[in-house]
């Protein structure tokens, strides 16, 4: 198992380099420089001063040199300093990341807790009302613009009904609340963002789960299990589910980048000060170090998701562990 893990881990390193390399080149090759914002608008800044500024940020060197310098610093966990407020990028990301992680992990749990049982049930009760409603639900889930759904639910729950706070993550009187009150307050603020960000993937996962389950139910070993006289629950939840989960685990791993990417949209709709908002602000200000920092952390989280998917996969399918170790 350990050897299998180590192998997967090593396999992820080139992917991380690939992602950062592409990001770095795309961002730095785009026309315009971050120094333009400070200089070209300002007639008092001379050409020499601009060159000095570029030199200070290392922007005067060829791009591959810049990339290697960046890599060298990242190897020591240093993402550089923000062009906006000169604070270390790692510090800026560290204060924004917990809330984004909290939302995405809660969404993931919601997806697993609802999507998988829903898919299994509609596969087992194929053709029933439940199955048909799940199918309709999953098609709508695929097609609905999530930001629009967010606006609709916001207007229903926060404005018309007044049940939930409209945006942000804390109420004004947050400081005076008790510990339990604080947790409840944050939870009330996060209900909508979490549910909506889970919605799209939830639809996808339940659909994949259903397809995988239908495929498995017709296999010979399921017939054997039934012939042995096992109870239907045992056949479905022990023998069939374990095998049907395999493709779904892969899909789950692949849905991580989507979740992270859409945090930009949610965080700007619900005014949540997370990593997505930080990215949006940095892009607008051409804050290269922060952009690269957030992209790298995003890539790291995605790879972590893939690694977890691999672990889950090898847990569900022992054949993987054995053949990969040989």
């Amino acid at each position: 198992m350990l050897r299998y893990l180590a192998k997967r881990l090593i396999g992820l390193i080139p992917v991380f380099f690939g992602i950062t390399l592409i990001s770095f080149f795309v961002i730095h090759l785009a026309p315009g420089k971050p120094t333009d914002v400070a200089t070209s608008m300002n007639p008092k800044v001379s050409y020499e001063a601009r060159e000095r500024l570029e030199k200070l940020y290392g922007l005067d060197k060829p791009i591959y040199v810049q990339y290697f310098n960046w890599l060298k610093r990242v190897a020591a966990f240093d993402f550089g300093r923000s062009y906006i407020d000169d604070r270390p990028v790692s510090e800026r990301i560290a204060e924004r990341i917990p809330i984004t992680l909290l939302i995405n992990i809660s969404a993931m749990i919601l997806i697993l807790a609802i999507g998988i049982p829903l898919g299994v049930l509609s596969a087992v009760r194929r053709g029933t009302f439940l199955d048909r409603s799940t199918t309709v639900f999953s098609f709508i889930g695929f097609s609905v613009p999530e930001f629009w759904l967010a606006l609709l639910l916001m207007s229903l729950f926060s404005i018309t009904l007044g049940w939930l706070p409209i945006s942000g993550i804390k109420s004004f009187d947050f400081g005076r609340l008790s510990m339990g009150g604080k947790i409840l307050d944050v939870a009330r603020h996060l209900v909508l963002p979490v549910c909506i960000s889970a919605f799209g993937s939830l639809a996808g996962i339940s659909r994949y789960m259903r397809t995988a389950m239908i495929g498995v139910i017709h296999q010979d070993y399921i017939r054997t299990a039934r012939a042995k006289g096992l109870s239907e629950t045992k056949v479905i939840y022990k023998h069939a589910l374990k095998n049907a989960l395999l493709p779904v685990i892969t899909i789950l791993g692949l849905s991580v980048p989507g979740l992270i990417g859409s945090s930009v949209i949610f965080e700007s709709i619900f005014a949540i000060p997370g990593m997505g908002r930080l990215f949006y602000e940095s892009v607008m200000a051409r804050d290269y170090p922060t952009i690269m920092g957030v992209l790298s952390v995003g890539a790291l989280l995605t790879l972590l998701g893939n690694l977890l998917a691999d672990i889950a996969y090898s847990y569900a399918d022992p054949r993987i562990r054995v053949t990969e170790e040989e």
Partner: protein
Amino acid sequence: MKNKITLISLTFIVMIFIFALFAPIIARHDPSAIDTDAILAAPSQAHIFGTDTLGRDIFSRIVYGSRISLSIGFIAVGIAVLIGIFFGSIAGYYGGRVDSVLMRFVDIMLCFPTFFLILAVIAMLEPSIFNIMAVIGITSWMGVARLIRSEILTLKERDYIAAARVMGASDVWIIVRHLIPNAIGPVLVSATLGIGGAILTESALSFLGIGVQPPTPSWGNILMDGKSTLGVAWWLTVFPGLFILFTVLAYNLLSEGLRDMLEPRLKE
């Protein structure tokens, strides 16, 4: 039942096409005409979907916005399909090291938080319609590449490919004339699905203010005003959103119908 759904989806898509083609005839108002006497007017005879914060007719803006959504959907997916076919067929046909390098590259692209990359590129280049199409296309070709590759992997072992080779056909000729046409079915299905995805991405970008720039109407940027008028003018949010939802839904259902048609084996 399934055929009926496909037909309804197709009808809806044709309707949106008619909207886009005949926008000046169908829209009763100029989509950017500001009318200070009718700011945030509720749906009525004069403005069937109401008006926005500048008194512009929402229905007319939606009709004109369909031009943007359709052209972005089709061209972005066209770009993605071309790139995907190019890499996928090379990987599948030549195999070996070429294949493993290209597929590794696909893996890397699939690990990207794509929306971050799209956002960064658009914001840095300038949010023009052309840039949006190009960036969406460049970040969504991986599925097509994988499909084409796996089709070609099985197709290239067939006798008719061996026959073509014996007759002296070049690699390019075999790929372009014999392999791609036979592998195109699944690509068509995934491309139809991709059009819906591209429309969604464009609307999200425009909603964030870095997509199609006002005053050009797009379904996403009509919704931009929706947030500030939430609870005041529901029509501003509901109608453009429904158009996005139904259009994307129609493409997704059409893709499902196409799949059943092209691959009867998979039919449930």
